[in-house]
């Protein structure tokens, strides 16, 4: 059971308070009608499924209810960073270096 920091509540809580919502920073096209089928399937289903350092969406569903993002090493399951929704995607390589990966 992971230990997760909520950047809004500013506390660490057990994973069971949170819902993971998959890969982060996949924006819904502003005008879907202008997208090709390939672009739409990319948005709907295609995922990096990264082995290593990746950014993902979490929601503090049994806490403040806010969505936020986290950077996690999917091999060790250790978190490298938590940040609020809307904040830019961090430099994953830099984070990886810090974590000595």
């Amino acid at each position, binding site marked *: 059971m992971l230990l997760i920091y909520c950047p809004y509540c500013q506390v660490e809580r057990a994973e069971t308070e949170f819902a993971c919502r998959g890969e982060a920073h996949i*924006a819904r096209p502003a005008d879907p009608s202008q997208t090709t089928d390939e672009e739409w399937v990319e948005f709907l289903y295609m995922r990096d499924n990264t082995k290593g350092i990746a950014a993902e969406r979490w929601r503090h569903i049994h806490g403040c209810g806010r*969505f936020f993002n986290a950077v996690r090493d999917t091999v*060790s399951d250790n978190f490298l960073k938590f940040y609020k*929704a809307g904040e830019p995607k961090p430099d994953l390589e830099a984070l990886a270096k810090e974590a000595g990966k």
Partner: protein
Amino acid sequence: MSQPFRTEKGGRIDRAEQLTFTFDGEEMQGHKGDTLASALLANGVHLVGRSFKYHRPRGILTAGSEEPNALVGVYRNGDQTPNLRATQVELYRGLEAVSQNRFPSLGFDIGAVNDLLSPLFPAGFYYKTFMWPHAFWDRVYEPIIRSAAGLGKPPKNPDHDFYGNIYAHCDVLVVGSGPTGLAAALAAAETGAKVMLVDEQAEFGGSLLSEAGASIDGKDPAEFVAETIAKLAAMDNVTLLPRTTAFGYFAHNYISLAERVTEHLPTPDPKLPRERLWQVRAKEVVIAAGAIERPMVFPENDRPGILLADAGRTYLNRYGVKVGHKVLVATACDSAWQAAFDLADHGVDVAAIVDMRETPPESLMSIAEARGIRVEAGCVVTGTLGRKRVKGALLGRMMTSGQVASGGQIDCDALLMSGGWTPTVSLYSQSRGKVVWDADKGAYVPGRSVQKERSAGGAKGLYGLQATLEDGYAAGEEAAKTATGKSAKVTYVSASGGEAGSGGILGALPHDRNASRVKAFVDYQNDVTAKDVKLAVREGMQSIEHIKRYTTTGMATDQGRLSNMNALEIASGALQKPMTDVGLTTFRQPYTPTTFGLFAGISRGDFFDPVRKTPSHDWVVENGGVFEDVSQWKRAWYFPKSGEDMHAAVARECKTARESVGLFDASTLGKIEIVGPDAAEFLERMYTNPWKKLAPGRCRYGLLLNDAGFITDDGVIGRLAEDRFHVTTTTGGAPSVFATMEDYLQTEWPDLDVWITSTTEQFAVAAVQGPKAREVIAPFIEGLDLSADAFPHMSVKEATFCGVPCRLFRISFTGELGFEINVPRRHGKMMWETLAKEIEKHNGTVYGTETMHVLRAEKGYIIVGQDTDGTVTPQDAGMTWAIGKKKFDFVGKRGLARPDLVADGRKQLVGLLTKDPKVKLEEGAQITTAEQPATGTPAEGHVTSSYYSPALDRTIALAIVKNGHALEGKTLYVPMPTGSIPVEVTGTVFYDKEGARINV
């Protein structure tokens, strides 16, 4: 004295308290402080079980949780627990234990024939045979294999006990309370850190409790233990947990502990849980789990009476039990000599110390000499005599050639062996740490820490009383400092005696016997011999994981804690590769087998999952209603009157609702209040329908898709004000719809000034449906003109019901005149009972979900999840009318334009009428064009809903059918085992097609 092998004095047992217990029905005596194992040994009982495969007689091998042989079943007041380690079962008055895996008796076991046939049963034999004749596998071979399976008998009755749970946090968790753990706990505690000390044994102290001849701080080790524990117990920043096993080390320093609360008590208080699960988040962990002794792999090393040397010493010093009267000690390291000396000091005849080493340390030799103990240096045991109890041992002299020459035979009634020590790295391994090979120590020891833990003392291959104490203090101090930043002056104490020894051996010992005929056991419980490991290699198994799986070595209930190192060495020899290239199997949770009930905890019966009830629940129970589970909710299903079956009850409810009036509890429907200047814009983006022009006071049916274009939910949405909507969802869909809305709102459109709040449980909802609906509610509604003109279909207004503020919807899921009254939940019971009484005046009826389904089906209203299944689009469902044509976008709009969603030949929602109006189709039944379709014919579709319609006095059905909308009037078939049923494709509205009844 009834216990012939009990020492005169010494040990930590309470000799004053005599306890009677039974083993296989035979009554015996033991003492408070005994384990079942020590008590059995005190009575001279070594034979306690039979091995898994060959049913060989087996005795107690160890004194700890790694015991592979002495597994027993324990019975107490109707409950039975299999496979308990006798070495861990604390003795209590009246304990009732039985041996396992034998028939008819432990002494005479038919299964033992396997031992004679063993040449036919090498490792993996079952992969090579039992294949012919084909049919014999199911009928003959497998049943035989299965009946031979298993050790103990499974429990026969539901468990009477319950299990507790507690979540805890601490700065430093110390696992193990030997010298290292005690020192660590003390050092950490003195800094003021929150410390938890856990030990799997009944008493704290670990090896210190069986130490003899050493002293700590000038005191007897046991005294040091008592004082230290007393000191710790007095500190309120310390939690002491004996009888508690740290069995799992998970991500982010989450450790799970199993506390045995009542198992050791003769008469447990029924208010206490049998065991308690501790779920601990520790800032730092000190693993002080110590090390365990390794068996020696020589022929017939499994006879009852053969134990590990340290176990023999523990039984002697801690429990006051002599493992035999004439004891042979076989070893390759120093530590076993101490066992011989202690035995001699208790007047036990030590037949000899047989040490593989040519020249054991002089210091030991002289002590042995002083005690007149015969020493056979440079010798190995090459076999043992006896069957149900060891009678003697064959000696072999090691020659420089590496060969072994026969060295005669020595009689004994017990044999203590030691191949050296193996650090307990299980928890470290579970923490995902990678062990590293330490050539000097001849052991795998913890490598770098992956999580916030440190191994100390024996657990990292460090031995000797003084050294382990110091290591413990240091580990405790560091851990506390890392966890809290605090440190304190820790008073180290020093020890004398208990020095670390040297020596040790891995793998199979050399011998002069016929290798192909003798059995030298590596994994006792699974009957894996050195031969088996070599065979696996011969057959091409190169990874230790393959060898393990092929031979099953290390897969017994000790998870290979005793066998892994010896197996590895034998494998590496056979592969002619260094051991480090053979690989290593990983230890997994749980550290020792852990009770299922502990994991399940309070989750049983109604606490298995919350039971959600509506305010009408009690009334429904009192009035004989039958419930159905819908997600976590209990919903009234139907209300049988006396003598009515479901069919009759539902028929009556339907008829009454259409002819007069029906009352239905709609409280479980999801409700979401959407408020803010952008509320309409938000709905516009979420739902397929247009919302901006919907006037306050009006309602509209809303259809929700996912971005793939498929229907996910629906419900009526009322506009209460410019900036306030009351949204309803399906019962099961409520949480996911809310989550989806939050997702889009927070992450896609955070700029919108709108917020959503779940009001599902704010309101109780009564649906009053039928021609008399208006008359039924009129007497209780104030502040609202209910007339058709003033309050037409699809209206919503705030008013009062019996003086209570309510939201009144005029909507219908039946096709009849209908109202849904929302009152604050606390008034729900009142509202329900008021209306239930009122409808009686109109010969109305209460109705449940089944009738609701029939009534809506007669009108062709869909149920999301029943008539749709996640692959259905609005077009498929014939609901194109629900899509706002002029809308720029909505969730699912783009998805709907994908090739397959606009392709021909999609399955579409239609009505079906059986040619024979009496025949009711089965829901889920398949539909074909051919009357007698060949097997494998693709179905044209399936029946989604099917009922008897009282209003039409015939059966009706809804179905998803390929090109269905174009097939109206055509005949299709529903092939059933009993024959094919012809059906006509129709529209989805069966009743009141022009919809006149709804607008009265």
